[in-house]
């Protein structure tokens, strides 16, 4: 028997000494933007924010449910923080906390009702919720600015430290991206993560052994949406502008595509997916239409040939090599 089963139950692509080179490569990649131009820095910031949002989505996905309304929770977080910040002149941290709290409550109320739905029905309702959120933001123009959105959102300032410049914001975004990825890795090598995996793999057995499927899925949904709220708030402060279209369904779809291509069941899936796919639309700026074709084709190819995503590639190669 192994020494400690809780530690040895690492997820595929788990952390070991052999991964030290990967870590070094990621660190080198992470440091690169500081020595590059503004454009690369901008892409790096967007990538980091995507990593955060996708990690939230991955948490929901690993409990066995797919949310097609993830961007709506980014929107709820962003609008709450911005509007409350304006109305009560709240500093950044309190505004962020309130936004996370409000988003969690919305996710809890929604999740309590709709997490009894399975598979495609859950996907449909989250899609509808995403559209509903967008339409509410459009229609209540007196508060939300409607289709014009809200401009002039101030940069983040915490205890006198300003994150107004691109380089300083990148540092913040990088910390957040790494922290969320590390958090996912920690979670899924621990009992709670194993319980969440159990619920996704065999819900009947999980339920029969005392792992309440409903409660664990609500937990994942609420925490995943709270993470989305943080990503939404950070994005609004970075761009300085939000509108209902900043968080529409195609953003949600994009997050799902990045998650699936990166790897749904790996702690590194969000990181890999965001790094590979975030820069692409920007590089294809001249041909915005082909970008969607590329996304779609990549998604089909991955689902067909690599259901575990890119993050699962090393393990697959090793398995093939051993055979």
């Amino acid at each position, binding site marked *: 028997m192994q020494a400690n089963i809780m530690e040895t139950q690492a997820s595929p692509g788990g952390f070991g000494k052999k991964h030290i080179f990967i870590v070094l490569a990621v660190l080198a990649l992470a440091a690169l933007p500081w020595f590059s131009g503004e454009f690369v820095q901008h892409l790096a910031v967007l990538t980091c924010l995507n990593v955060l949002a996708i990690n939230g989505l991955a948490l929901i996905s690993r409990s066995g449910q797919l949310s097609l309304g993830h961007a709506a929770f980014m929107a709820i977080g962003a609008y709450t923080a911005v509007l409350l910040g304006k109305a009560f002149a709240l500093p950044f941290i309190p505004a962020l906390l309130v936004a996370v709290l409000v988003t969690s409550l919305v996710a809890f109320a929604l999740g309590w009702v709709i997490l009894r739905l399975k598979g495609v029905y859950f996907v449909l309702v989250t899609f509808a919720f995403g559209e509903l959120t967008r339409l509410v933001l459009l229609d209540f123009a007196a508060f939300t600015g409607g289709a014009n959105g809200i401009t002039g959102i101030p940069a983040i300032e915490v205890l006198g430290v300003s994150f107004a410049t691109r380089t300083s914001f990148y540092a913040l975004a990088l910390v957040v991206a790494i922290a969320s990825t590390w958090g996912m890795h920690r979670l899924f090598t621990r009992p709670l993560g194993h319980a969440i995996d159990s619920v996704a793999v065999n819900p009947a057995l999980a339920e*029969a052994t005392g792992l309440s499927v409903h*409660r664990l899925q609500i*937990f994942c949904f609420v925490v995943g949406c709270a993470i989305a709220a943080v990503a939404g708030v950070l994005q609004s402060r970075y761009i300085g502008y939000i509108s209902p279209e900043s968080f529409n369904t195609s953003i949600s779809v994009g997050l799902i595509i990045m998650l699936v291509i990166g790897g749904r069941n790996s702690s590194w899936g969000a990181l890999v997916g965001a790094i590979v796919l975030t820069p692409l639309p920007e590089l294809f700026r001249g041909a915005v239409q082909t970008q969607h074709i590329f996304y779609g084709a990549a998604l089909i190819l991955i689902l067909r040939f690599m259901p575990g995503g890119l993050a699962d590639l090393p393990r697959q190669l090793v398995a093939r090599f051993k055979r």
Partner: protein
Amino acid sequence: MNTSSILEVANISRRFGGLMALRNVSFQVSRGEIVGLIGPNGAGKTTAFNVITGTLPPTGGEVRYEGRRISGLPPSRVVVAGLARTFQATSTYPKETTAENIYRGMLPRIRESLVGPITGRYHRDLSASEVDGEIDRILQITDLQRWANVEAGSLPYGLQKKLGIAVALATKPSMLLLDEPAAGLNHEECNELARLLRHLRDEHELTLLLVEHHMALVMELCQRIVVLVQGEKIAEGTPGEIRGNPAVIEAYLGAPDYAHA
């Protein structure tokens, strides 16, 4: 109320649309007993099983476990009360090893984890350092040590069914409900199952209720047998009494000729 009874099924009914799958079924199981629930196909055995384990709420009556009402609770809460179940077909986490499957059965019991509070098990009896010992103990009880590091999905059918019992034991139940534990097992595996179940009762003070088709096993193992036919209890008694009960014989073999005269 019988003070030694651990499970009381009181007048439960279950209706599916116009079909009464269960009609006012009552029986009790005493602590330390092995009770069999039998009946021809369509008798409502599986419905009764699902109502007791919380998979289905009853449309009438109630189920009490250790004096507490458990009907209407979801299965995960019924387990917390001490009543664990196994599945008719195999049910495992196929990509995980045997040991890891057992470990997953005890997750809500681990003190240093949020699993218990989130899933509603507030009484946690296992510290993280005791987990490996507990897994070994269950591997030993079920005689699965040799397969500890084998992926559950690649185990033969009989061993997967045994693993199902092991995972149920990992929840630390005081009573085990087994849904056709002998289905699909060969003669030798069947004998081993009977040995295991008897061992669980004698050495681990478990109470057992099994829904079973395998008559020889039921007659050999059970102290009492409850017979369901078309959703109603038609007989209850020792294997000897059941074997000689005309109503049971009629249900299984059809009415004797003179009944048609």
